[in-house]
Each structure stands twice: as C-alpha cells, then as structure tokens.
C-alpha cells in the first residue's frame, strides 16, 4: 500500500518536472524580455515550440549514423531520470536511494558525453567546435561540482540527496563558511552547465562563440524537441537542486499527508519563480564573456569547492 | 706412479699435442683433437667416482674438481665447435694447413696446461702451468698474423709476462712465510700442507704475498685495471680461443686466487682478502659496463662483458658467506657455459657476415633465425634474465649483499643495469632492425651451442641435489 503510494508520488514528481520544465524556461525568457522592456513571447511559447517540432519531419544529414538518431532519446532519458531524483516538494522519494548526488552528476555527465558525440557525428566543423568547447567546459565544471558535493556530503554526512535536504532543513545546520562557498560555486557551475550568460548564450546562432547550440546544430524535428526539452529539464534540475539544498523550507518529509504535499508543491513553485527571476536578472545585467574566459570562471568555482572541502576536512566547525 | 684419472687428464692432452704436432692433414687432426678432448672429459668425469689420494705434486679435491670437470667439458665442446669453424677458416684461406696443425697442437698444450694448473698440489707447479697456458694462448691469438692480431698478441704477452712475474714474487713470498713453520723443501709449497698450517704463518708476509698474487693472477682474470690485454686478445684471436679464454683461462686464474684466499682466510692475523676482491670486482664491473657502450666489434663487446662478469664473481667471493660463495661458484660455471656459447654463435655470425663490425650485421633473426635467436638467448642469459641460470646467481648475490652491505649492493646493481642496457642496445642492432650483411646459409655446428644453453637453462630451473651438495661443500671450504 505504502509502496503504491510512494510509487504514485514518484510518478507525480517525474511528471511534474517534465511539465514544469518548459514553463520555467518560458518564464525566464519572459522575465528577461520584460527587464529589457520588451513584450517577449508568451509563457507557453516553449510548449508550442516543442509541439511544432515534434510534428515536423526530421531532416537528417546524409553522413549521420544510427547513433545520431539514438542520442536524443538517451540524452532525454538520462536528464529526466536525473531530474526525477532531485526532491522538489517531498524528500525520501521511492527511488531516491537508487542514485545519490554523485550518480546524478554522472548521469548528467553521460548525457553530455553523448551529446558531444552527436556533435561530431555528422562531421561538420560547427559540430566539432561545439563538442570540443563543451567538453572543455565540462572538464572543469564536473570536478567543481564534485568538490561542492564533497562539501555538502561532509556537512550532512551523506551523499544521499534526500538526507542532505532533510539535514539542511533541520535547525542544527547554521550559517557556515563552507556552505557559502559551496553556494557560490554551485551557482557558477549551474550557469556554465546550462549554457547561460556569461558562459554561453542560449539565444544566439551563427556565432563562433556559441557552444551548446553549435553542438546540436544538425538536429531537427522531434530530435531537436527532445534536446530542447532535456535542456529545460536540466535547467529546472539545477534550480531545484539549489532550492532543496540551500532553501529547503517547505519540502515535506516522507509520509506527509496530501494537503501538506500540496503546500510543499506551492512552496516549490514559489522557489522556482524566485530562482527564475534572479537568473533572468543576472543574465540581463551581465555581458557574455569570451570562450577562453570560461575556464577561468570555472576554475574559480573549482577552487571555491576545493577550499570548502579543505575547510571541512580541517575542522567540522567551518 | 700408477695411471689414474688425474694423470689421465694430463697425459692425454700431452700425448695428443705431440701427435697433432707431427700428423698432417686437417681431417685427421681435427677428429683426433675432438677424440683427445673427449677422452680427457671422460677421465675428468670419472673423478666423480674414484678420487685418487693427493700426491706431492697432484691433488684433486672438491674445489678443483668443479673446475676440472668444467674445463674439460668446455674444452670438449669447443673442440667440436672448432671442427666446423676451423674448416671454414681453411676454405676461406684465412688459415693455411701448417697453421691449422700448429693450432691443434697448441690447443692440446693449452688443455694440458690448464688441467695441470688445476690439479697441481704445488704452488710453484701451478705457477709454471699458468705461465705455459699464457704463452700458448699468446701464440694462438697471434695466429692470423694481421697487424691487429700481432699487436693484440704482443700486448697480451707483455702484460701477461709482468703479471706472471708479480705472481711468482707472491709465490716466493708464500714460501718464505711457510718455511719457518713447515721447514724447507717441497712440503712448504704443497696446498695440502699449507692450508693446514697457514694459521701460524707470518701475517705481514702473507699480506704482501696476497697483494702480488692478486695483481699477478688478477691480470689473468682480467680484473680492471689489469684487464687491458683481454678485449684485444678476444677480438683478434680465432673464436674457439676466445671461447676458451673467456670460458676457462679466466676461471683457472680465479681458481688460483681462491686457493690463496683460503690461505689468508685461515690466518686470523692476516688482512682480510675480501675487501680487496670486492673493490677490484666492483671496479671491473662498473668500468666494463660503461665500456660496453662504445664497442663496434662484436667479439670485443663480449670480451668486455667477460670482464664485467669476472668482476661480479670476484665480488661474490669477496663478500664470502655460504650464499655468496655458492652464488659465486654458480655464476662462474654459468658464465663459462654461456659466454663460450655466445662466442660459438658470434663465431658463426662473423663467418657468415664476413665481418666482426656490429654496424655491418643486422636483422640476424630474419637472415639466420637459428643463429639469431641463439645469440639472443645467450645475451638474455648473460644479462641475468630468467629462465636461465645467471638469474639465480645474481638473485642470490644481490639479495644476500643488500641485507649486509646495502651501499655495495646498490653499486653492484647499478653496474649490472648499465651493462644490461648496453648489451641490449648492441643486440638490437645485431638481431633486429633491417637485415644487413650477407644472408648466405651458415654451415654451423649448433650442437655445442645449444648443449651449453640447455645446461644453463636447466640450471636456472632445476639443479640436481648432488651438484648442489658439491657446490655447498665448496662454498663451505671457501669460508
């Protein structure tokens, strides 16, 4: 009985992230447009795009291989699973123990691995640019992320996301230096991983500065739709990760009743709104940097993470 | 005195020498040569079973038993090898029939001299025998009568004579030391007597004597810095002689040294001979290892490797102790077999390629697979790699030394490593790479070559208990 209930909740969680993801993307775009004194597209524009794309036929390059066609599904699946494992409105999800924070990062890593391969598959120069830059950024972002995870794990005594979140919600965790460092680092990583300004610009095309868009340049139709969707999912994932780690208020523990769950969901949506607004604000207020500034940017994140971990190693009071 | 095995190993070569000096014709003489060495070998082997009591002049005990069997065996295989080798030299006209006759006679004289040096119970007699061996080898080294050959012979001759002189002085000193204790006459030069009474000898005299003997016989052993004659003599003489020189004559001289070392070991007050031998050994090892790098002549290359290994052996005996002495004996045996095998291979290679220059031979494993792989196997063995016997002796030497004197062991291993690197550097250009030089079919006698290698291989994997007991017994004697 309990299992079934948990199963339902897990499913609800998965659906929720899937449905919320495009909306969140749309919301960020809208806010950005408003901040730029523009009308901006309607909130539901991403949904419309996705539907349009799925309807269209796929135009596949002659030199594309079977792998090129499989990858979108792989990427989507990996991202979705990762996103589904991040607690949004309730901790202690049924399958939360099946992959801890490190595994979630690794899942995103595999998504990126295959996407980078896709960039090389058709054999065009743009795809190559995209992949090589993507892996360069990832090669710094991932270790930074791991270091941040170390910090959190050492504070909470667990790499299990639900447990970390519960611990964060508990009063025993006060303000800590290492936490602050981890927060900054995580934000920087999140920006880089989602290809937002100042590292990359999701809205550009046909510029040699672009990274992610160049990689998926050859995709079209349903494939492109899936990739767009997984991007939104990834963005949502990071925001909810930040939310459940650094703003764990309102996340219900396991065994909460339905109304409280609704309350938690509401809190979650609220957090998303705040996060999205802040993101948009940040993006509008800063200019994109050169590609080879990105390593320095991420190097800072890595150093922050390492510093935080070191502090934790040296003494538990930091 | 009655004819026993000991007189056998002396008389047979002597008679054979006389016959070969007069008999004409290559076929008969060569066969006779082999026959004589075979008989000698049989006599030597019989020493295992019936061992005559030590006489005034002759003596057979565990120590020289080892050497006699080894000497006669390698002498036998080498004679088989020279059967085909000298035949080829005759065809190519590098040697004329009279010289071949001379060569065979001298070969037997050399055998006689070495056996005499081994079985002699009298330090004077031993000295005479070693001088005789030296003179014969000098003549054989010069046998090709090219500029280089004569020059090598001359160098060998002068340095050898000085060595002999020093050794003689040492011998006299030993007698002087012995006389007050033992009294005048032959008794004061007999091993059997000397060893028993050496404790009472005058230590100062013994020390001076050992210094002279070490340098005198050390010249024959080829320890640096007394080695100068060795590389050229090996390179310029006929290959069978190189094999015998490296495989046997060096051992015989070393045997003499060991005998005298035993004398000093008995005398508590005398200076310990170990450190001297260790120093000279390490010096020779490291020096020879570096000298290997710039060699362009294949036979000179392996001559230097002989110096290197004599250094290792001297080091082992210098360290002393049951394990090190055992290892030293084993290493000496293995080195004789391996090095002569290598020279067999090298001889055929040089004949086929028509040169001794390493630069002119290449890709041997492709042009002459059997010879090539035999050479590789030999070098692998001499480099102390398993599954061949030298690995065991080096294992024992290094491990036993490192526990006692780490610094020495480090120097030792450094030398070994440098030597291995150099050997394989040369081997690569000989055995691998683009084939160079003629690829004509070699009419070679592989039997002695592979017989030796097989023995070395067997020793690396399994040693018969009887042999082991024998070695351990000797190791005990050496103290």
């Amino acid at each position, binding site marked *: 009985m309990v299992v079934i209930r948990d199963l339902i909740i897990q499913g609800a969680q998965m659906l929720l992230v899937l449905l919320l993801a495009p909306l969140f993307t749309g919301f960020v775009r809208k806010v950005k447009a408003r901040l730029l004194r523009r009308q901006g597209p309607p909130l539901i524009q991403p949904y419309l795009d996705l539907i349009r794309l799925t309807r269209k036929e796929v135009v596949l390059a002659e030199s594309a291989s079977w792998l090129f066609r499989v990858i979108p599904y792989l990427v989507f699946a990996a991202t979705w699973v990762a996103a589904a494992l991040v607690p949004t409105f309730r901790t202690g999800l049924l399958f939360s123990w099946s992959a801890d924070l490190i595994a979630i990062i690794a899942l995103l890593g595999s998504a990126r691995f295959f996407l980078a391969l896709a960039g090389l598959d058709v054999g065009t120069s743009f795809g190559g640019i995209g992949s090589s830059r993507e892996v360069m950024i990832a090669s710094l972002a991932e270790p930074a992320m791991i270091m941040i995870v170390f910090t959190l794990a050492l504070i909470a005594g667990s790499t299990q996301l639900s447990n970390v979140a519960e611990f964060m919600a508990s009063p025993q965790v006060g303000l800590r230096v290492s936490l602050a460092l981890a927060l900054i680092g995580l934000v920087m990583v999140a920006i880089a991983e989602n290809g937002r300004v100042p590292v990359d610009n999701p809205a550009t095309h046909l510029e040699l500065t672009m990274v992610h868009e160049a990689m998926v340049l050859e995709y079209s139709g349903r494939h492109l739709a899936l990739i767009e969707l997984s991007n939104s999912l990834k963005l949502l994932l990071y925001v909810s990760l930040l939310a459940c780690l650094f703003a764990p208020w309102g996340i219900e523990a396991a065994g909460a009743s339905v109304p409280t769950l609704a309350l938690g969901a509401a809190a979650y949506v609220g957090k998303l709104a705040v996060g999205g607004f802040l993101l948009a604000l940040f993006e509008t207020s800063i200019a994109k940097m050169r590609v080879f500034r990105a390593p320095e940017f991420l190097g800072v994140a890595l150093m922050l993470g390492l510093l935080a971990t070191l502090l934790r190693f040296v003494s538990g009071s930091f | 005195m009655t004819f026993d095995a000991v007189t056998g190993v002396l008389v047979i070569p002597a008679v054979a020498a006389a016959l070969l000096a007069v008999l004409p014709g290559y076929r008969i003489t060569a066969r006779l040569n082999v026959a004589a060495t075979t008989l000698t070998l049989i006599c030597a082997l019989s020493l295992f079973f019936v061992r005559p009591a030590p006489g005034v002049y002759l003596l057979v005990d565990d120590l020289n038993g080892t050497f006699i069997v080894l000497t006669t065996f390698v002498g036998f295989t080498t004679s088989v090898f020279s059967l085909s080798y000298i035949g080829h030299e005759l065809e190519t006209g590098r040697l004329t029939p009279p010289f071949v006759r001379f060569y065979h006679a001298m070969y037997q004289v050399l055998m006689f001299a070495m056996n005499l040096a081994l079985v002699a119970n009298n330090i*004077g007699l031993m000295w005479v025998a070693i001088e005789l061996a030296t003179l014969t080898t000098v003549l054989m080294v010069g046998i090709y009568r090219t500029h280089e050959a004569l*020059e090598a012979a001359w160098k060998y001759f002068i340095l050898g004579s000085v060595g002999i*002189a020093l050794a003689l*002085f040492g011998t006299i000193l030993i007698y002087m030391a012995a006389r007050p204790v033992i009294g005048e*006459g*032959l008794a004061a030069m007999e091993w059997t007597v000397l060893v028993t009474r050496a404790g009472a000898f005058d230590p100062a005299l013994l020390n001076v004597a050992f210094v002279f003997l070490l340098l005198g016989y050390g010249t024959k052993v080829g320890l640096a810095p007394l080695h100068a004659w060795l590389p050229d003599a090996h390179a310029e003489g006929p290959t069978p002689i190189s094999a015998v020189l490296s495989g046997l004559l060096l051992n015989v001289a070393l045997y003499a040294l060991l005998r005298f070392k035993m004398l000093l070991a008995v005398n508590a007050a005398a200076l310990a001979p170990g450190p001297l031998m260790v120093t000279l050994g390490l010096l020779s090892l490291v020096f020879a290892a570096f000298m290997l790098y710039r060699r362009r002549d294949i036979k000179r290359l392996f001559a230097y490797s002989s110096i290197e290994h004599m250094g290792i052996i001297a080091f082992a005996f210098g360290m002393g102790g049951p394990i090190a002495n055992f290892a030293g004996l084993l290493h000496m045996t293995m080195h004789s077999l391996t090095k002569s095998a290598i020279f067999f291979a090298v001889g055929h290679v040089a004949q086929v390629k028509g040169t001794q220059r390493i630069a002119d031979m290449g890709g041997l494993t492709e042009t002459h697979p059997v010879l090539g792989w035999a050479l590789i196997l030999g070098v692998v063995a001499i480099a102390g790699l398993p599954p061949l016997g030298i690995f065991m002796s080096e294992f024992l030497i290094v491990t036993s030394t490192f526990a006692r004197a780490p610094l020495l062991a480090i120097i030792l291993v450094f030398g070994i490593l440098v030597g291995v690197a150099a050997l394989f550097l040369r081997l690569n250009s000989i055995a691998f790479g683009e084939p160079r030089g003629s690829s004509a079919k070699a009419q070679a006698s592989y039997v002695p070559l592979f017989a030796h290698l097989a023995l070395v291989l067997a020793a690396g994997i399994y040693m018969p208990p009887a042999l082991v007991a024998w070695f351990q017994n000797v190791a005990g004697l050496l103290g």
Partner: protein
Amino acid sequence: MSRIDFDIAHLLAGSLVLISFLELYQDRLYALLNVFAAHALVLAASVAWQAFIQDAPHLYVTAAIALTFKAIVIPVALHRIIVRLGIHREIEKVVGVGAAMLAGMGLVALSMVVMLRVTHGADPLAREDLAFALSVVLLGLLMMVTRRNAVGQVIGFMSLENGLVLAATGARGMPLVVEISVAFSVLIAFIVIGIFLFRIRERFDTVDVQVIDRFRGERR
C-alpha cells in the same frame, strides 16, 4: 751462518739495487745494455754465493744461466737488434731522470717499510734479501713504464726478473728455483725473438711500442 757470509750476501743484494738505479739513470741504449750486463753479473755472483752458503749445488745452475744467458747472450743479441733495426740510440723517457730517481727512492723506501713489518722469526738475511728484491722488482717496473722504446722495456723487464731470481735464491731451500729461472729465460727469449719477428716480417718499421700501438683495437 757466520757474519761474513751475511755481509757479503747483503753487499751483493744491495749493489743489485744500486745498479738498478744506474739503469734508471742511463739515457743511451748501449750504456744501458752494459749496465744491465753488470746487473746480471752481480746477480750471478749473488746467486753463486747463495749456492755456496746454502751449499745448494743446483743454484749454481741458476747462476750459470744468469751469467751466460743474461750477462752475455741477451746483451749481445740486443746490440745486434739495435744495429740491425737502426734504432736511434737515445732512450725517450716519459719522466726526466731526476723525477725517475726520486720515484725510485720512494719505491725503495716503500719496499723497506712493507718488508720490515715481517717478524724477526724469518731469518734476517731472508728479510733483507726480500726487501732488496722487492725494490729491484719495483725499480724494474718503474723502468718499464718510464721508457718509451721496446729495448728499454725489455731491459726493465729483465732487471725485474733478476729481482725475482734474487728473491727465489734468497729463499733458503726453495724448490724449483732452477726450473723457474729456466722458464723465465724462455720467456725473455720469446720477447727478444718477438722483436725480431716484427722486424723480419716487415710488420713494423720500428719497435717503438707507441708505433705498435698504432694498430690498437677498434681502428677499423
């Protein structure tokens, strides 16, 4: 043994060392040969004296060999060679006479120090003789390494060997002395003949060892 015997033996041995110094001093080949003949002569005398005081008749053989072979045959033969090969009469030395002399002094001192450590158990004559013999040997070696041309070296070697014979005869009652001295004479004969061979076979245009070394190894 009586005092006088001892003194005579001592005198002979000592003079042998002295003559070695004289050899070291020479710089002309003929002179060197003559000095060496003297060396051999003294040796013969000393050996004969030993034979007399040890009343060991076989030593007379050695003395005879020394006299005939070393004091007469070899010098004459070398004379011939010098004439035949037209070796110029100067002896090229590596170090000057003075330095050689000093080195010689050092060597004599060294041999004394080494030998006088010997306990007095061995009779004094033997000790003194050994000390002298050792000095003669070392001086001979010194001569070999400081002389550039072969004849000089041969003479050095022979005086070295004289030292050995001196020691051997000094060793009272040592067997095989005769055999050994014979063996050595053979050896020397070989050397001399070797020099001849090189000449006769037109191998080398001089016996200067350095020129022989032109054909040293690795030069192909």
